[in-house]
């Protein structure tokens, strides 16, 4: 097995730019390992003919001035890809082939990247362990009996197993950061509106945001630069100038004020998470940052708020999957209503149904004020907590997750305990802020653990810089042993 695919994206780009490796050669290295790694179940769809074809085209006329010159990239199967099956991990869309390309993936192809395949995820991105996918659960390359997290579990698994040099996921309540934390990789959820949502299968529109998942912070900045940008097709897209995150990356964080929110020290949190957090604080302090204790008093309401807002929006967003126009249609039923009921009963999995039911309930007349409206008010308070603190600090440091990767099947029958996994990531989505999860250590089982840096609105550069400095001083080493080969 070649050592090249173990390298970071930025190193691979250098090799391609220097023509030390051809895109086609690189692609073949990945294809070889993908073919040998089916056990992980991280890919739903591969499109090797297309990938090789595109690589050959690149090699003939290499444009090395682009950000991702001839780089193959696998993509979470929530992004619509023109001519390639896009399933959202659901039976409902198992044969759905869009004839359009999501803005974010289009941006990647424009920068020279090549589609390598579509990565497994929780059904409609609803899950924290990649166990709700219609296409089966994904295995964490860290240890064969553990989940990779979710919903971007296929992305995290493929990345950690060197089945793609980088990838993108979507993060509605932690779906990039939690799997990044579980697999010892870097995951960034940008400011809401930085990356276009156009062409991404919607889960919860006011929370969904696409972001990069990479092996290093520098890789993360390159990917973010390539995928972000204003899109007039998305009304919630932010109109602003493109930034050169990778060029502006720096390690000098002297004098920056880092907030430590006391509310994130939750009950029954494993001691090793606490130690990880303390270690993180120490590293940043040693780098010249100032550590400041802060309070985000409404944090405890974030999870219940999220589990009202997200299902409410999902219940409406998923109404279009009715068997009429595209996707799965049940063959049973004598009239329209029966066709709807059978299609949706057979086409959706349990977790999706659970959230549609919750969402429908909280929007129902008589319950709307008590649930949805109240949740929206609390959401404002959570946002206000952050805003008030960001007057006096530059970023916030928290653990990414309350535990390391858990065992497959461990939480599938206990949705609440599954939901609790997102406790540190959810507030950021509710506030629309950017946050990055970076690998920060291993627990006693040798599983990776991540720390989360939360930034101000559109302050991606700043949290990338802090993460970059942290990475250089943390000496984290991901020990993936390729046990599945």
């Amino acid at each position, binding site marked *: 097995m070649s050592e090249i695919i173990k390298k970071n994206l930025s190193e691979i780009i250098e090799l391609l730019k220097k023509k030390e490796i051809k895109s086609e050669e690189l692609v073949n290295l990945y294809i070889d390992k993908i073919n040998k790694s089916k056990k992980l179940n991280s890919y739903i769809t591969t499109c090797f003919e297309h990938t090789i074809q595109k690589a050959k085209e690149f090699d003939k006329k290499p444009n090395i001035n682009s950000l991702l010159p001839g780089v193959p990239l696998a993509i979470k199967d929530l992004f619509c890809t023109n001519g390639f099956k896009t399933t959202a991990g659901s039976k409902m869309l198992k044969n759905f082939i869009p004839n359009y390309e999501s803005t974010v993936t289009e941006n990647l192809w424009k920068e020279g990247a090549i589609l390598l395949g579509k990565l497994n995820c929780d059904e409609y991105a609803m899950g924290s362990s990649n166990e709700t996918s219609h296409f089966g659960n994904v295995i964490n390359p860290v240890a064969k009996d553990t989940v990779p997290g979710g919903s971007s579990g296929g992305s995290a698994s493929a990345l950690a197993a060197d089945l793609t040099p980088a990838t993108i996921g979507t993060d509605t309540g932690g779906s990039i950061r939690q799997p990044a934390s579980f697999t010892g990789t870097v995951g960034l959820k940008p400011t809401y509106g930085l990356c276009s949502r*156009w062409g991404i299968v919607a889960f919860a529109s006011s929370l969904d945001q696409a972001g990069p998942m990479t092996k290093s912070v520098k890789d993360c900045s390159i990917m973010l630069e390539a995928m972000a940008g204003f899109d007039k097709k998305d*009304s*919630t897209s932010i109109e602003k100038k493109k930034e050169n995150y990778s060029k502006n990356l720096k390690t000098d964080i002297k004098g920056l004020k880092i907030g430590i929110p006391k509310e994130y020290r939750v009950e029954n949190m494993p001691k090793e998470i606490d130690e990880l957090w303390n270690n993180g604080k120490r590293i940043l302090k040693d780098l010249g940052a100032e550590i400041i204790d802060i309070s985000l008093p409404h944090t405890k309401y974030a999870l219940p708020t999220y589990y009202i807002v997200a299902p409410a929006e999902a219940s*409406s967003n998923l109404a279009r999957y009715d068997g*009429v126009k595209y996707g799965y249609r049940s063959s049973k039923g004598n009239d*329209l209503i029966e066709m709807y009921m059978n299609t949706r009963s057979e086409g959706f999995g349990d977790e999706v149904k659970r959230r549609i039911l919750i969402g429908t309930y909280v929007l129902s007349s008589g319950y*709307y004020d008590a649930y*949805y409206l109240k949740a929206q008010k609390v959401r404002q308070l959570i946002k206000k907590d952050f805003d008030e603190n960001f007057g006096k600090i530059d970023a916030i440091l928290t653990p990414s997750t309350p535990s390391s990767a858990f065992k497959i099947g461990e939480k599938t029958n206990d949705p609440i305990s599954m939901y609790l996994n997102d406790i540190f990531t959810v507030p950021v989505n509710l506030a629309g802020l950017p946050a990055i999860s970076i690998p920060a250590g291993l627990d006693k089982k040798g599983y990776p653990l991540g720390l989360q840096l939360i930034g101000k609105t559109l302050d991606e550069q700043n949290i990338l810089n802090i993460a970059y400095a942290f990475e250089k001083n943390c000496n984290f080493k991901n020990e993936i042993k390729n046990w599945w080969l």
Partner: protein
Amino acid sequence: MSKDKFDYFIKGEKNQYEVIIGLEVHAQVLSNSKLFSGSSTKFGAEPNSQVSLIDSAFPGMLPVINKECINQAIRTGLGLNAKINKNSVFDRKNYFYADLPQGYQISQYKNPIVGEGKVLLDMPYGSKEIGIERLHLEQDAGKSIHDMDPSSTFVDLNRSGIALMEIVSKPDLRSPEEVNAYIKKLRTIMRYLGTCDGNMQEGSLRADVNVSVRKVGDKKFGTRCEIKNVNSIKFMQMAIEYEAKRQVELLDEGKKIDQETRLFDTKKNETRSMRSKEDAHDYRYFPDPDLLPLKIEQKLIDDLKKSLPELPDNKKERFINEYGLNSYEANVLVSEKEISDYYEEAAKLSDKKLAATWMMGDLFAMLNDKGLNISNSPISAKNFAELVQSIKTGEISGRIAKEVFEIMVESGDNPKNIIVSKGMKQQSDPKELEKIINEILFKNKDKVDQYKSGKEKLFGFFVGQVMKQSDGKANPQLTNEILKKLLKG
């Protein structure tokens, strides 16, 4: 129709009832593309040929507001003397139906773009103000076609996503006539503004009609029923009459009215229950997270206000003052913008009062006969003015004018050419006329004697002879004068 007192009451067995009506009018916004997508809104295209990925709700598709539709709603609001809300919100109205691809309709629920306004009606018993509760923007659904196949329903999504304005009136209407006047007035205002073509055959204007009754003198409203989706004024009137009688009968029998949604069956001329209040849909409205709240700048409102055309109420005032028309004439001539434009063009070139008389008489009768409207009239406003002016100056008589008019309709030629080429010019030379008249008097000496001895009815006979002799071209006024003078002598 000309009543000077309002008298629409329904007589029950015991009591007399008043009918309370409120309308929710759905007016299709005149715009090239749909409310949230770039698809065309043209009527009558091949089924499903004007459907984008957004209109058919493909995964990951997002709505983007069409600014022209916003402007049209603001214009309409201004035309209804209504408050424009600088902050409004698009909500999702959730329900499942085969012609609703998203599974929800994007509408405005709690915060509409336009608030309270008013519309003035000219009723025979005086003018009446009808309150507007609100106007909001929403998407139209597609069309389900049930009669093409016995076992399946076909769906045409061309209409899916087209912008509609829902204009909700206050319960201020009291009779089918007022409903008729209200709808026509709304349509006139929107046509003036160019915000809705008001074409009811093509479904550009339809209404949900809320009807309740109460004993004359009662202050409290009765329980209302909503009659859904009525698409002609005639059907609205029929539905109201039926529904009001039905409610009165129930009340007279001591029964209660159930609040419900009803359908109007145009074949049987009756309303039928569609669903009761208990079965009402729970639409689970909530703000559409794909769209930011709609903010409207004062400057936009001001700019649109400045660009508004003169509206019918103002134009009517002006026609009365400027052209000396009476209220009835002015009303008719401002009822459509094209009519008022035609009239003004003609009135500038001819006698204003005579132009009005001829327009409302011969011109309208001809258009009506031929099933034409003013925009495709075979007589241009300029030619029409020339004709009117020829009458006014005495070049031709009113009778000849009718002949010229006929020829103008057939040939499209201008009246001057017709008069000259057909030698229809009126004989207005007194010397020539005197010559003709003298000849006639000479030939009919006996009748002259009879006339002089008191048989004055014979005057008509002499006029007839003059007309006959002159091929009808003798100037009637001049003929009268000269005849009288010569008969005296």
